[in-house]
């Protein structure tokens, strides 16, 4: 009965695959395990090197866990997955250089800001573009990835004052393409935030053409109503600004 055997094996194969390979993940049964969501594509705040999670944000939270005797169970998500994990309470905390913004504050709680982030317009060193004020900004093309907060900033802050026009902006899928175009001379300047710029400056001959300070602040994201947040804020106070700055400087320089 060739046909019968065919069917039987087929069904068995599927059942086996479904049962053996596809079981749920094992639960970690330990007290004081904190579920952490990260996006390891945000150097220097959070990244992976040789499979090891590290970075500025990691050091800060690692310090908290050492002080409070807890362990981290880190799961890497992409950016929207990381934010989704916090909102849905799958994770107890998320950090990867997350900006504190009004829309995000509606669905999650943030710690106190642990560092200020600048916004930098960078250009190639050999072009030697340095802006003392924004009067000549409209003579240059600016590029950045889609979905970034820079677009709102240009729309609400720069365009009404006649400093820059949204139509002049070039949009890219990610920083990678924007910076490739910058090196090829297809765009004059690229918007980076200060942390990202500190990393790219080591790899590419770029310089700051103009810098905005004090617009953007980073925080650790917790689910709404999280008790962990209050304790983490307390830890940030215990740590004090000097020690916190030392950790920031270690990664930013």
């Amino acid at each position, binding site marked *: 009965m060739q046909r019968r055997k065919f069917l039987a094996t087929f069904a068995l194969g599927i059942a086996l695959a*479904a049962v053996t*390979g596809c079981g*749920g993940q094992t639960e970690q049964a330990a007290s004081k395990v904190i579920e952490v969501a990260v996006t390891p*594509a945000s150097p220097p705040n959070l*990244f992976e090197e040789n499979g090891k999670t590290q970075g500025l944000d990691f050091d800060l939270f690692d310090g908290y866990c050492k002080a409070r005797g807890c362990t981290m169970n880190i*799961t890497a998500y*992409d950016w929207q997955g990381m934010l989704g994990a916090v909102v849905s309470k799958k994770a107890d905390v998320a950090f990867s250089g997350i900006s504190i913004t009004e829309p995000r504050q509606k669905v999650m709680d943030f710690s106190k800001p642990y560092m200020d982030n600048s916004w930098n317009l960078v250009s190639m060193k050999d072009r030697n573009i340095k802006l003392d004020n924004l009067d000549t900004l409209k003579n240059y093309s600016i590029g950045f990835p889609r979905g970034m907060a820079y677009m709102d900033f240009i729309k609400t802050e720069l365009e009404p004052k006649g400093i820059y026009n949204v139509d002049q902006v070039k949009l890219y899928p990610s920083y990678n393409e924007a910076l490739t175009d910058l090196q090829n001379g297809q765009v004059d300047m690229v918007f980076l935030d200060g942390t990202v710029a500190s990393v790219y400056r080591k790899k590419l001959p770029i310089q700051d053409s103009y810098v905005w300070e004090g617009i953007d602040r980073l925080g650790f994201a917790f689910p709404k109503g999280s008790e962990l947040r209050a304790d983490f804020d307390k830890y940030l106070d215990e740590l004090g600004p000097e020690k916190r700055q030392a950790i920031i400087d270690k990664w930013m320089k």
Partner: protein
Amino acid sequence: MTFVDILLVLLRGAGYTLLVTLCCSATGLVVGLGIAIARELGGSRLAWLLSAIVYVLRGIPMLVLLFLVFFGLPGIGIDVSPLPAMMLSLGLIAGAYLSEVFRGALSAVNANEVLAAQSMGFTRFQTLRLIKLPQMLRFAVPGMVNELTTVLKFSPFAYTVGIAEITKQAMALVATTMRGIEIYAAIGLLYFAIYRLLLFGVRLIEKHYNVPGFAQE
């Protein structure tokens, strides 16, 4: 870091990519086959209901369904782990597509054979099990392979729910090395290799159940 080093880092995620692909494919095959059989044996009301489900599943974007399952269900008290979440989204969508592949293959079965079976006194279930399904599965192989490769290429969504598959390794690597083009080229090679591997597996199964002279024109 040479191109080989890049490949080695990405390979750390290949196991998860393969696991997600196989689990979602298995779910898809079970669901697709279930729908196809239920349509054959069930009444018109069940067929209508199944058509409606397939209609919705084929129309809903993968990412939307995944978010609903993984981040939405905990809101009503059902906690779903990452891999089952992938099976409930990508697997179900694949099942909907496969049920249509099976429907087409079923209609390719010679009507006279079915008629002959009925005249021999076969029940509907016997006709389906002994006459229709064995032929249908052989007819459906090209369509199934198509759908399984689609599942493979949708597997990067697993990163959204925290499974460390190839794309996750690649994005982490691009962020520290800034060598996007080489890394994306390496991903392409890896996915192609996995595709060839799956194709090889399907060919083996196909050959094993090959009936000389059947469905080879």
